[in-house]
């Protein structure tokens, strides 16, 4: 089904007939050029589905690129900062990639089918970047965003829901593994990945199969507290999990108008993904090596546990002398932990060496007036929520 896109700004995903039917609020937004729901009914209940039952989210707008060719493995290893030389077939890895200056372009996941076939998933559009970077490699890059329909199935009962849907023995699938299934005559790839920091899976299939997949998953999850899940609820879960969002927690290097806004992996808590000792060269290696050796990293991205119950949206962070030391990039009152949490970009040494006497200035809106709250913050691990069930093998089943 090709959509006629003349005079239209936003595309519909292959699940649109189902997501629009499920929406009781008619609230949509533009994700990567597609119309997707921000909220189906109430965000709190959708969030709860992800932490209590099964949440289903249309992931199709996520940028998806197929990398095929004899040099596919070398190319991917060259593109990203992480050492993927030993990556096994049928596994997925979390990655970031940088420009030549060692500034982060985006984070995403890379799926390895074989050493000649990969799929890269990410938030921003990078078809052009991939092609430019592929100079000299024997690879073909195809933008498959439109030709692969994707669903996120996340939450404590998600494994049971998918088993009921037809994914036999799914509980044995380990985190960051993927497996191909044939369900009702369609090939469906299932990976144990996700953006909620909980037990969860992602499904990848042909758009022709989209509506049937949605319907059958809905039936499978009927007794398992299944609910479609919009972008607002996803934002809540990803903050709890401490996952970063491009152009929210940091500016993508290719999008930043002001060069000073670009961030190195070390500045956004992604240093663990930079393998300077990997044998082959990768984009940005020289710059990152220099930054590391000269210790010139300026900022850090940390988790904050904040006093009170008013979320610190966009708050400026101060030290005890009331000097500006950073900004909150994402904040929420965490329903599951009953904590006021935030991600914040701080100027070092705050957040690294100095973790005490840090304050957020919160402007809490109260009927056209603001209440100014001076709230004490504790620097904590960015991964606020990390339940045991997330990585458990075999996965929890509700039967």
């Amino acid at each position, binding site marked *: 089904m090709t959509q006629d896109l003349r005079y239209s700004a936003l595309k519909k995903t292959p699940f649109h007939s189902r997501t629009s039917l499920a929406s*009781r*609020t008619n609230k949509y937004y533009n994700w990567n050029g597609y119309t997707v729901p921000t909220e189906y*009914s*109430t965000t*709190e*209940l959708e969030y*709860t589905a992800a*932490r*209590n*039952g099964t949440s289903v989210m249309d992931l199709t707008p996520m940028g998806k690129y197929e990398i095929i060719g004899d040099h596919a493995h070398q190319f991917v290893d060259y593109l990203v900062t992480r050492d993927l030389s030993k990556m096994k077939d049928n596994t997925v890895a979390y990655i970031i990639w940088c420009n030549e200056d060692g500034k982060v372009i985006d984070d995403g996941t890379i799926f390895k089918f074989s050493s000649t076939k990969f799929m890269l998933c990410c938030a921003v559009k990078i078809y052009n970047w991939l092609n430019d970077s592929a100079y000299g490699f024997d690879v073909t890059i195809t933008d498959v965003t439109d030709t692969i329909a994707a669903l996120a199935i996340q939450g*404590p*009962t998600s494994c*049971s829901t998918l088993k009921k849907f037809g994914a036999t023995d799914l509980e044995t699938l380990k985190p960051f593994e993927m497996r191909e299934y044939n369900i009702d005559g369609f090939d469906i790839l299932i990976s144990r990945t996700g953006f909620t920091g909980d037990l969860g899976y992602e499904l990848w299939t042909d758009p022709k199969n989209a509506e049937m997949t949605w319907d059958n998953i809905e039936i499978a999850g009927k*007794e*398992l*507290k299944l609910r479609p899940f919009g972008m607002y609820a996803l934002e809540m879960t990803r903050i709890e999990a401490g996952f970063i969002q491009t152009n929210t927690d940091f500016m993508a290097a290719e999008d930043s108008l002001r060069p000073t806004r670009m961030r190195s992996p070390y500045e956004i808590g992604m240093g663990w993904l930079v393998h300077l000792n990997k044998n082959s060269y990768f984009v940005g290696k020289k710059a990152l090596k220099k930054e590391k050796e000269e210790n010139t990293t300026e900022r850090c991205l940390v988790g904050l546990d904040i*006093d*009170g*119950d008013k979320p610190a949206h966009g708050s400026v962070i101060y030290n005890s002398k009331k000097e500006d030391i950073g900004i909150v990039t994402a904040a929420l*009152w965490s*329903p*599951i*932990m*009953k*904590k006021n949490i935030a991600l914040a970009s701080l100027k070092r040494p705050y957040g690294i060496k100095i973790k005490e006497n840090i304050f957020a200035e919160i402007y809490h809106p*109260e*009927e056209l007036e603001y209440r100014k709250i001076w709230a004490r913050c504790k620097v904590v691990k960015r991964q606020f929520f990390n339940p045991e069930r997330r990585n458990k093998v075999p996965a929890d089943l*509700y*039967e």
Partner: protein
Amino acid sequence: MPKNTHDVIVVGAGHNGLTAASYMAKAGLDVVVLEKNDWIGGAAVSRELYPGWKYSNCSYVCSLLRPEIMRDLELYKYGLQIIPYEGSATMMKNGDYYTHYHDHDMTINSIRRHSHKDAEAYERYSRDVLRQCKIIKPLLKMTPPDLTSFKPKDLFGALEFAKHFAAKDELGGLGEKEIYDTIRFYTMSIRDYLEEYFESEITKAHLAGSAIIGTALGPCSPGSAYVLLHHYMGEVDGSVGSWGYARGGMGSITQAMMGCLKDHGGEVKPSSEVTNVITKNGKAIGVATQNGDEYYAKKIVSNLDVKRTFLKITEEKDLPDDFVRSVKNFKIRGSSGKLNIALDGLPDFPCIPEGDPGGGGDMHFTETIEEMEGAYDDWKRGEWSRNPYVDMCIPSKSDPTMAEPGKHYMSVFIQYVPFNLANGGWNEERKQEFGRHIVDCIAEFSPNFKDLINHYEVRTPLELENEVGLTEGNIFQGELTMDQLMFNRPVPGYAQYRTPLKNMYICSSSTHPGGGVMGAPGANAAREVLLDMNVPQKGNYY
């Protein structure tokens, strides 16, 4: 030094006892909690009485538990998760229904089906009730001041208390008119209050339910409006008035509290019923248990209701006469019963269309306030209501851990059920008759309901007293009327968690701010004990 010596003994492992114990253990004290049953949790329990089904045997929903307490005691870490309700519905004999939803706009659209005027009045009503909730919220965590005392603490306390009623900034300009509204609200009947807003009977009946749950007042009794407020002042993550389920049943709350307590070195001893408080020179020094053990401590904190604390485990000779008289006069009347039902499938309620989220939370079938008052009239005669008000819900619709997929647990709270049943009182036969009566009432709205029942547990006020230890089975450990609230709770002059018996404290729902699974009395009492012991309390949000 005798054996079994601790800093603090807490009598009763209900949610308030465990809250108090956890705060004190967190502050570094050596705390032991003695519980009469061989399970813990008081009225916040999840028990499997029929294989494969978990029941929230007593309390069944959660809203009042203070988020600050959940945060301080890190209850999440010990397994507590609250699942918000999707909606609520009242079914009507004509086949129609009335619903509220988690989403405000959906609720307005739903009310409009019954009355356009009421739909708009609901906005005004919500605002007014929310305003009352905002006044009361900061009072929950305060120790009520003694209004007759000239101690600086009480004078400042009284000012602080008054400030919340008159503070203009905090409440967006609460003026004289609003203060009058508050005074009226605290003393009015819910019928009179609702009639100032709504015209449709079904709207009023649906809303009035919250004003009679757990109380021995009818919807026309003065003071019943406050009971509604008491059910509204809770929250689920900032959504004031919202209710939710504790994942895994209400026992998850007390289990999580026990997890926190144990992590801080505290101890809980089940099957250790305290029979009496040991005193020496007019001071409480320990307790004796039924199995003959004795425990000694610097402080003793009772999680039992005020009657059990002072008329059962404390000797009258250790207490002032006027105090004993006040305790005897404390109103604690049983008025509620409960059915916990294991269902083989989801019952059909034809009034509520399939998939309507209104059926996802509490369901009722009382259509008018008059019916409700009629149900109360039966109670006054010592009978269970022939046409009862029920608050029924199916937690397993939202919670995947209560029963296996496709099976369901249903909780049915029944108003009114007397403690002193006329014509000879409760016995097994009459208890079962009561249970069958309720099943019949529900079956009128659900054709397949009876066929799905695997097992049910019937709870009368007598069971609640015998098993949980709530005098007369009153779920609030004492009526929530002005004469028994704030500085009058449990008795005037003793509202600060201290008692006439030195070193003896009370932390139960018989104290301010009262009943419900709130934890506030426990946390407030712990604060007073720690103050008296000069133990620093740092880093708490509560």
